[in-house]
């Protein structure tokens, strides 16, 4: 199976909230110094899912990512986990693009890679949390798709997947080629082996720009976006917490019960 995984590098979502800063004028997040960006969590699960499918059914996994220089580290990590090839989409014209504009570039790259069977990507990215790219890709590539997916099986040249629902899942069958948005329930992403890390360092990663993808700047980046970011800010949260004073934990527990009763919450 020829699988393409689209990954996104995002600022580390695990930093303490107090460290989170926004440049309101530039409408951008200011990552704290010395904190390296990471691969968006669900995309890691997508890479793992692709690798497991390759191990079961043979084939090739190519990983794609759109972004600046630091994206190479993300691609190397994916290669170290076991992906066969990587492509870096980089061009000033890509900057500031929303999910759709990004998907346009990704879809063009996927087409350029040649015949493919399955595209996997995380159900949403840990930065903007919009979750549009999986179905945008499905639409642009005109193939069936599903998101969010917690289980994939290949059967009779097609897919049987479980789509996550609020209280369980929905089984779906679809032919290949298809696009799936991957959810975290599906697997545990592997830690790269040493051989993988070393080998990844040696794999050449081609860089494709707007022209390489046969696109024009109007189709991508800010100009190709459908969403307009009007404002970005950190909400001010005042602590209006009423603390229960007590000498011991047990006393606090009792006072809390009384308070809840008083507020008619219990």
């Amino acid at each position, binding site marked *: 199976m020829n699988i393409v995984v689209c990954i996104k590098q995002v600022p580390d979502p695990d930093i303490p909230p107090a460290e989170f800063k926004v440049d309101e004028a530039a409408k951008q997040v200011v990552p704290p110094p010395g904190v390296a960006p990471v691969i968006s969590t669900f995309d890691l699960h997508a890479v793992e899912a692709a690798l497991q499918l390759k191990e079961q059914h043979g084939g090739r996994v190519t990983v794609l990512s759109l972004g600046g220089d630091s994206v190479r580290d993300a691609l190397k990590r994916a290669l170290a986990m076991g992906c066969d090839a990587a492509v870096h989409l980089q061009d000033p014209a890509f900057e500031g693009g929303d999910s759709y504009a990004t998907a346009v570039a990704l879809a063009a790259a996927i087409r350029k890679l040649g015949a493919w069977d399955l595209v996997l990507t995380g159900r949403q990215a840990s930065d903007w949390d919009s*979750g549009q790219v999986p179905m945008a890709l499905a639409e642009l590539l005109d193939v*069936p798709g599903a998101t969010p997916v917690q289980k994939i099986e290949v059967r009779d040249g097609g897919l049987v997947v479980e789509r996550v629902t609020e209280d369980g899942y929905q089984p*779906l069958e679809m032919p290949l080629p298809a696009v799936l948005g991957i959810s975290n329930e599906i697997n545990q992403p592997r830690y790269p082996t040493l051989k993988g890390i070393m080998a990844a360092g040696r794999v050449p990663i081609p860089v494709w720009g707007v022209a390489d993808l046969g696109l024009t700047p109007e189709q991508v980046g800010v100009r190709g976006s459908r*969403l307009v970011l009007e404002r970005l800010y950190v909400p001010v949260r005042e602590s*209006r917490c*009423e603390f229960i004073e007590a000498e011991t934990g047990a006393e606090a527990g009792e006072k*809390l019960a009384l*308070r809840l009763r008083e507020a008619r*919450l219990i």
Partner: protein
Amino acid sequence: MASGSVLVIGEPAEGAVAPVTLEVLGVARPLAQQLGVPVAVAVLGQDIEGQAAELIARGADRVYLLADPRLAPYQADAWVPVLAELVRDTGAPIVLLSHTQTGREFGPRLAFRLGTGIITDCADFQLDARGRLRAIKPVYGGNAVAEYTLAGDGVQVASLRPKLHDPAPAVPDHQGEVVRPPVRLDDRQIRTRAGQRVRSALAGPDLENAQRVVAGGRGVGGPENWRLLEELAEAIGAAVGASRAAVDAGWVPGPLQIGLTGAKISPQLYIAVGISGAVQHMAGCQGARTVVAINRDPEANIFKHAHIGVVGNAKEVLPALTRKCRELTGR
């Protein structure tokens, strides 16, 4: 057909209207009123006749019933073309849906099919000076807030984060029309075969609908202390949830996880025990009316979101709390 309504797309539901649909309706109505257009709800599926009355009673001016066996169970391949045609035919300027696991899938696809964009997982909406939709959306796990509009003048699609808004209130003596547009679906467009939804045995449907929730995190200390939480929950009639830390540590199964990618709850009372209050968790309980936090660390982030706080050890606080609650409520 009449043109221009704020169109709400109903969440697939069996029998009665899904509560999240009513939430979106509740948000759509004021927008429609501001724009001076009706608010409509599109219901797709089979055996959906019964939903029209409820929707009209809750303020829908128009209900589109699109009944077809191929529309149930839900699947994107069938819903998207049908909805796209409905939107084009009715010329709705704004299309809203609930950001459920299902809405996450067909919403974007529908928007792109229509040649427009979608703003997903929004907390609230406004209309700007031009009457265009301005969506307020938490981003970066909830650390920041973004406000978006859609470029151009075309149809605008957006999805509403569930459980943040009350369901649309009943509008006394409200009248509305029911429209049954023909469903034109080319079978060749349907490439996917959808099965019936499977309810997970572990899933806590109680969690998402519960009025009272008690949740535990890393600070609970270990699986052996979990029963203290369960006892409290039982004493006050609450559902039990967990933060990701407790799930990752293996103390409770995954479906109990409350958070950005887990269950979204909006109870009247939410008691967070030993939960630090990381934003990804808070994103799951933003809808809670009253948040009570019990945590050993006075600097814990949860206290910035809590209404009532106790700095203390869960092992000491919970038993006394449970006992007193039982005494006060006579359970």
